[in-house]
């Protein structure tokens, strides 16, 4: 293998790895928003999930226990958001922002003693036979860790559930017109709780991926705005898990591009802006596309459901 091929391969490997937490987060937020609840707390849930995963993995020595802990913490934080926005009908933006601050606070406090501590057991790549022999792409896609494979499978499942099953119709209807769903005997609050918690679980998983796989250590603030990019990617994906793949991996690529361009002497401060400039561009593209395709955000997004209204 010559040097150039190797470089391209490495870029692709990192791209998919960088895209994975974005994909996981976006999948979760899609479910939350599809049910009508905007959750701006992704950044916080990711950070708390990341530290929970790292701490648990350090204590138990098992990274998989860490992943479970990340999921549980993400889900619990989302439960708070669900309680505030579904049961108490609080403002979803305020509750979400509070959740972000809470999550970042928890992660800072809990993570203090893990700063600079190396991860004992890492989640290692698993080479899939045959498929990984495909030139370039094979090594990038089929020589990854189990969490990566899991995220891809989950994405497909989430898409299938949303569009091809009974439950999917219920979730989408609750987000579009909760009154209609309610009039048919569907429990709007139950659907919203489940979807918001699903969102938290996925954000927690995304955080676990960051601390256990992508960076393999705990650094305060390691989410670095990924939670916000997830919010933008949810819009970019037009609330469809299929398009979430595209958005996540393109943004994964942009993260990798940061490192590459740095070696060409581009100012790192400028490069730090890259994901956010790309976010703006992606949102513009999404607006154009959604107009053309007649896709709008879930109609009840951000609006609490009140039966007697």
């Amino acid at each position, binding site marked *: 293998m010559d040097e150039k091929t190797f470089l391209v391969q490495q870029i692709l490997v990192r791209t998919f790895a960088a895209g994975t937490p974005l994909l996981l987060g976006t999948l979760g937020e899609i479910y939350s928003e599809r049910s009508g609840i905007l959750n701006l707390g992704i950044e916080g849930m990711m950070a708390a999930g990341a530290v929970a995963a790292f701490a648990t993995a350090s204590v138990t020595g098992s990274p998989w226990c860490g992943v479970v802990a990340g999921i549980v913490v993400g889900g619990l934080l989302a439960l708070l958001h669900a309680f505030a926005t579904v049961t108490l009908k609080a403002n979803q933006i305020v509750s979400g922002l509070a959740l972000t601050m809470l999550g970042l606070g928890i992660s800072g406090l809990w993570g203090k003693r893990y700063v600079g501590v190396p991860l004992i057991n890492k989640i290692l790549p698993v080479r899939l036979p045959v498929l990984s022999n495909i030139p370039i792409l094979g090594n990038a896609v089929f020589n990854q860790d189990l969490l990566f494979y899991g995220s891809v499978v989950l994405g497909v499942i989430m898409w299938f559930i949303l569009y*091809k*099953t*009974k*439950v999917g*119709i*219920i979730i*989408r*209807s609750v987000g*579009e*017109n909760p*009154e*209609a*769903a*309610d*009039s*048919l*005997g*569907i429990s709007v609050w139950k659907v919203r709780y489940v979807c918001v918690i699903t969102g938290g679980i996925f954000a927690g998983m995304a955080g676990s991926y960051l601390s256990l796989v992508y960076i393999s250590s705990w650094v305060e603030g390691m989410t670095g705005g990924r939670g916000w990019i997830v919010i933008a990617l949810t819009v970019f994906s037009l609330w469809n898990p299929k398009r979430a793949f595209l958005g996540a991996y393109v943004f994964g690529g942009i993260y990798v591009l940061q490192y590459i361009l740095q070696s060409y002497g581009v100012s790192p401060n400028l490069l730090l802006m890259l994901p956010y400039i790309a976010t703006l561009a992606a949102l513009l593209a999404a607006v154009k596309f959604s*107009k053309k395709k*007649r896709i*709008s955000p879930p*109609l009840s997004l951000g609006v609490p459901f009140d039966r007697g209204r």
Partner: protein
Amino acid sequence: MIQSLELRNISKRFGAVVANENINLGISSGEILGLLGENGAGKSTLMKILFGIYSPDNGGIFVNGKHIKISSPADSIKIGIGMVHQHFMLVSNHTVAENIALGLSDIPFFFPQAKIRNKINEFNNKYGFDVNPDAYIWQLSAGEQQRVEIIKVLIRGAELLIMDEPTSVLTPSEVSALFNALKKFVSAGGLVAFISHKLDEIMDITDKVVVLRRGRVTGQVDTGDTTKEELARMIFDRDVALSVPFRDSICGSSVLEVVNLNVFGDMGVEACRNLSFSVRENEIFGIAGVAGNGQKELIETITGLREPASGSIFIKGKDITNKSPDIINASGVAHIPEERMKFGVVSSLSVCENAALKDQNTHMRFRGVFIDYGKIKELAERIVKEYSVSAPSVESIMGNLSGGNIQKFITGRELLAEPSLIVAAHPTYGVDVGTTEFIRKKLIEKRDTGSAVLLVSEDLEELFQLCNRIAVMFRGRFMGVIDHQHIDMDKIALWMTGVSGN
């Protein structure tokens, strides 16, 4: 099977307001029961109790003589009661199949759409519907949407259909199709509760009628043994002139001039195509047609809320195309908007403050810094008095007034400004008969004092009663314009469905 259903001694209060008091009524298999009354008479509350949305304070529901507890819509669906709401409960971004599959228990978990498709076709054949399972709701006309609602209810095994003001959004031909379907349904043993305030329809379709006034039953008769006049007496407790006959007027010079107007709708479709018409002094020009054929976009363009793609609009010779609503307003255009809560008033402000809206700048003092409350109070009191708005005081919050009073208030605010053009969109939609007559009289009064009126309505009776000329709009075009003396119901009905013919 539901053989008979009875409501016994139903009472329901909301705070101090009595919505239903001691109501008794019964329906049996094969019957259509009409439920008649003004807005606010308690018809909808009663049906919501039957459907389990509200629970009654007193009384009970009996099916086949047995007392049944209904505490949620899920309960009533289980018993076999289905409700077609006045405002459709549909997800407009979803397909027909998805809407019907929603919440249905006996469909497969995976790929539910496929099985639903067959079931929809069964109902299509049975009731003569032509619902396409794969169409999106937003693509359907109101009549088609209603058919989706009916299938949705029937597929859940409803034997008793509650129809809440089902004809308010339908064309005449859609109404007769609906009535045929209902007749088929009851002839197979079904029961129908039909809510309406239109006497003609009640006489047409029902077997017996229950009349409600202020939450009480004021009459219960077999439809065959009664007349419209008698029913009207039961509704209002007095004799009412059912409709003021049309009075002609001599039209003056042109006030509104629309020339080759093209407008795009929200979805980028052509909403108005090359419209040209004028409305003259002392004239009411009506636009008939089913909602969604460009009427809304036309009105928004005239009042400055939407930019036209091309064409021009003149008020008394002055070009107001693309001008801001403020300038158009100052040119003497009054607007009674279609969505009164959204565009007519700010419901969280007081009556007083709402009176000042629109010409707020003339109610300022000290170089336009402070609101002149004395002045706007005076104006509000004048509106309340002259347009008999019943409000506790002018300081009351707008949103606490009833729909009819809000509409009278808006009408008053707009008409007291002495406009040269009045743009009225569905001015009597959803208000009771008394208020309807009041608003119509005021519009005629204004016409007689020289205003031009552009009236968009789906209520043909209203248009016949008020308009000197009527245009029928279909897919953004005028299918034809007809003078009052040449009004021909059949022709208009054809135009409304897009058939031109001569």
